């Protein structure tokens, strides 16, 4: 592979990871649940693109496999599973009131992204030179921003997507430093993501039916001090 092609591939990988970071910010701050889902699908496509580009750069079959797995499971199967298990109302929800208002949440996200860079760059420096690249810092940033999404959002779909975004972030870091993980493991992780969607979908449907709202992050009745009147419990 010539030097200019190599440079181009590296630049495209850097672009893919940069846009990945942007989608992670978007998942934290988008009001509409459907917008969140679209951003998550874009994030998975960017992850697949980065995997493919790294596979091109290092001639690794595993990474091509990762790219294929990501292209099939997340943009296609996750929305399908959501439609099957969870009510259609999930798609039209938007956050009316947030835990934190959006500019504050975005500023915290920014601070976390900068912190992720400070954590990630020494980690890559400790590895041999062929592992260097933007994947690890941005992967850690994706991890942190997914965790932030779980903290600041109340609606069910953004919370689920925050969980999956965390895994995307961990995976983005992983494809550049853990390239030789066998395909079995990658397939298992992908299937695991689907099981998460399935179970959470079933749970959200149960919450919708029995509690009457999908703002699951706002459920906070289990506390210590208030001895609320207990209903007759059916064991």
């Amino acid at each position: 592979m010539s030097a200019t092609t190599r440079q181009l591939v590296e630049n495209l990988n850097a672009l893919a990871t940069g846009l990945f970071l942007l989608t992670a910010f978007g998942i934290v701050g988008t009001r509409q649940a459907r917008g969140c889902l679209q951003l998550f699908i874009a994030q998975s496509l960017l992850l697949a693109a980065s995997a493919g580009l790294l596979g091109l750069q290092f001639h690794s079959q595993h990474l091509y496999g990762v790219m294929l797995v990501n292209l099939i499971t997340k943009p296609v199967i996750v929305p399908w599973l959501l439609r099957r298990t969870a009510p259609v109302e999930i798609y039209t929800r938007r956050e009316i009131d947030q835990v934190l208002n959006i500019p504050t949440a975005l500023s915290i996200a920014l601070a976390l992204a900068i912190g992720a860079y400070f954590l990630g760059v020494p980690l890559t420096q400790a590895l041999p030179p062929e592992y260097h690249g933007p994947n690890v810092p941005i992967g850690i940033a994706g991890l942190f921003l997914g965790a932030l999404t779980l903290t600041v959002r109340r609606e069910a779909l953004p919370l689920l997507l925050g969980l999956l975004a965390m895994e995307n972030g961990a995976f983005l870091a992983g494809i550049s430093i853990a390239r030789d993980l066998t395909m079995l493991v990658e397939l298992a992780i992908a299937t695991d993501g689907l099981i998460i969607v399935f179970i959470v979908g079933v749970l959200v449907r149960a919450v919708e039916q029995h509690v009457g709202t999908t703002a699951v992050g706002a459920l906070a009745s289990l506390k210590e001090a208030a001895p609320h009147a207990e209903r007759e419990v059916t064991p």
Partner: protein
Amino acid sequence: MSGRIGFNLLQVLVVMAFAPLVSGVTSRLKEMVQSKRGPSVFQPYRDLWKLFHKDEIVSHDSSWIFRFTPYIVFIAPVFVALLIPVLTSYPLFFAFMGDMLGAGFVLALAGFFAALAAVDTANPYGPMGASRTRMVGFLAEPVFMIVFFTVSFVAGSTIPYIVQQKWVTPAANFFAPSHVLLLLAFILLILAEGGRIPVDNPTGHFELAMIDESKSLEYSGQGFALIKWGGQMKFFVLLCVFLNVLLIPWGLAQRQDLAAVLLAVPLVLLKVFCFVLVLVVIESSLAKLRLFRIVEFLGAAFVTSVAAMIAQVFAA
């Protein structure tokens, strides 16, 4: 050297002459996208001509600010046009008089006076529009700063000519993540500063919803013509900064003779019109944001620009 002064003045004349054309093309394209015919692209020229020939009415209760502001709003973009690359890729005579931050401050000065003038009259809509414009302005300031900081960090200088030579001219940098993110941030900034949808509706007539337009409600005749022209020039100047420094620095005059510079004029206009097309598509597909959501819009622009800065400054 005299050639360079001459090119500089030519640059200013180009900006002055073609700014209304850009405005006319924008309105025409927007109407065409909406399946209407729209006014002629030269209509802004006719409007300016008409306004220059009308009487001016000035309120008794206004002060010298009200009378001076149209001239300040007109001159500021002219100054900025002296500083930025419009036609040439090499620095001209006045290029080192001020850098991008200086250009930003000059435009901010014009905005400051416009806001003051809006408050100067007793019109109730004036101060309302002024305060809203200030809100958008101060939220957009950090984005400007971070964008300029990032590009200067790469180029090692804040003069736009030097930045332009170092930033995207090595074509491999076009796909660098910081470049793409900066483009996104700057597009959001142009939408905010230029008063386009989704921040503000430039063709709206409902005063309670106006942000930029209500500052010029009290003006008439020559003052109004100068303010309109100044606003169009400011938009053109912003577009020039975006296109010639950040996005497509190619197509500017490389050689130092008149023919090359004159050739650059249609090329620059072509770039501007292509971008205006993109802008029109964006404007026609979005709805105007509610006022408090402009904060989120500019917050997103800020986050994008800081992400670009992180990708540039901290990345290996």
